[in-house]
């Protein structure tokens, strides 16, 4: 079982790394933000698995904080940083 | 082993942050660079504080938590200053930056 946990965290981290390609590639700002949102969820999953694997209950609190604040950056993007007409910084 | 990975990553972050801070002209970039530089220092501090098998040293942890909180307040203040500079001069760089680095004034 521990090996499965560690393989799972490694797999999830690789997943996250693959998602970075979408941040770099765009093409729209929304695509980059979507990828960041997926990173947050993946980090929550990694933390929960690590908490179980290492028997460290505190990591569930870290995951809890991640889950609570998952929306903050995305809301800041939608309410502030998203340019009204999609413009030049959305080109790849 | 774990500590060595992260300590070296911390050193790399310090180097990257210093390079960005000294070469980039845009003030927001400079703020990002300072944050990355700080993260590198924190990584080195914490990864040197632990020994394999033993309980980690809580003193660097406490210092790094303090550092993270101070870093975010300094970043917020820096962002306000940057906005003021940009509003006053029309560009988000400092005036003593070399000419070719300045953003074209719109």
């Amino acid at each position, binding site marked *: 079982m521990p090996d499965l946990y560690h393989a799972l965290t490694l797999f999830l981290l690789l997943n996250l790394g693959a998602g970075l390609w979408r941040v*770099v590639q765009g093409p729209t700002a929304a695509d980059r933000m979507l990828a960041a949102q997926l990173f947050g969820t993946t980090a929550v999953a990694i933390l929960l698995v690590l908490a179980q694997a290492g028997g460290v209950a505190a990591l569930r609190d870290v995951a809890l904080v991640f889950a609570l604040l998952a929306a903050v950056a995305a809301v800041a993007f939608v309410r502030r940083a998203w340019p009204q007409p999609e413009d030049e910084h959305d080109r790849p | 082993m774990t500590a060595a990975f992260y300590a070296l990553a911390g050193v790399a972050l310090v180097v990257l942050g210093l390079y960005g801070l000294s*070469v980039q002209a845009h003030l927001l970039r400079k703020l990002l660079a300072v944050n*990355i530089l700080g993260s590198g220092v924190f990584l080195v501090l914490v990864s040197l504080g632990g020994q394999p098998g033993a309980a980690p040293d809580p003193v660097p942890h406490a210092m790094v938590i303090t550092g993270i909180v101070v870093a975010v307040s300094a970043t917020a203040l820096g962002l306000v200053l*940057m906005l003021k500079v940009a509003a006053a001069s029309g*560009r988000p760089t400092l005036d003593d930056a070399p000419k070719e680095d300045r953003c074209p004034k719109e």
Partner: protein
Amino acid sequence: MNLLQTGFDGLLALGLIWLAWRALACPDLFRGIVLFIAFGLLMALAWVRLEAPDVALAEAAIGAGLTGALLLAALARLNRTAAAQTLPREAWRSGPALLLVLAGAGLGLAVLSLIPEPAGLQAQVAAELGRSGVSNPVTAVLLNFRGYDTLLELLVLLLALLAAWSLDADPPRREAPAGAVLDMLLRLLLPVLVLAAAYLLWAGAHAPGGAFQAGAVLGAAGVLALLAGWRLQPHLTGTPLRLAVTIGPGGFLLVAWAFAAGRPAAAGISAGTRRRSDPADRDPGHPVHRRHPGSAVPGLAARRR
């Protein structure tokens, strides 16, 4: 330590370096900020792997939540001041780069030679932990052994807030209404955020958590409310708000002053070197042992912004 964990650590360390490089080097600022947010997420995972869950909590609340929102909001206002946001591609400077690579190599060697470090302060902290009134060593260091540092940090937060207030004549701007979904999200999320902050503060005594993390969660709650267009009532924003943000450092100062005035010999001496016969050391109700009341100040500091 098996191969899978080593792979995880190596990948995470490389990912951190790559993200930092791309965040600094890519020509588009918005992309750089998103990469920086991802960098904060990975930093939290790195703290977990370094057995520093307290730091991971602070990083999760600040690095992944607050900083990203602040940077994005600042970038948006930068656009509004008609400043160019896409710079001409930064020139690659080989001179500084070479110098820094050399310095970095030296730094790396120095750090590697320090890795089997003889001993930190964990033995001293463990020896004094029983008298600190809490069982989480990091909280004990922050609020007992280095209480004056923490007081000064509250003052740093207050100063940053005051400076931002004095500089920032934020022109009132028209905002689109938040919409039903965002309003609903806030109505559901804000009470949970406040509850979670209280939980982190309470848990800090015996488990990872504590005042800073709780304050950061409250701060993020305030930022979220600001982003949705919720504002304080006008009659609360003047003197009452100013009083509220000074209560924390003020109360802490008062406790420190009372402590120093009452027992001049012990003032300014850290707990580690204090005389063993000190009667106050055994008194759990002594002011120094209490959690300071200013834990909400980081939250307030962020709330105004």
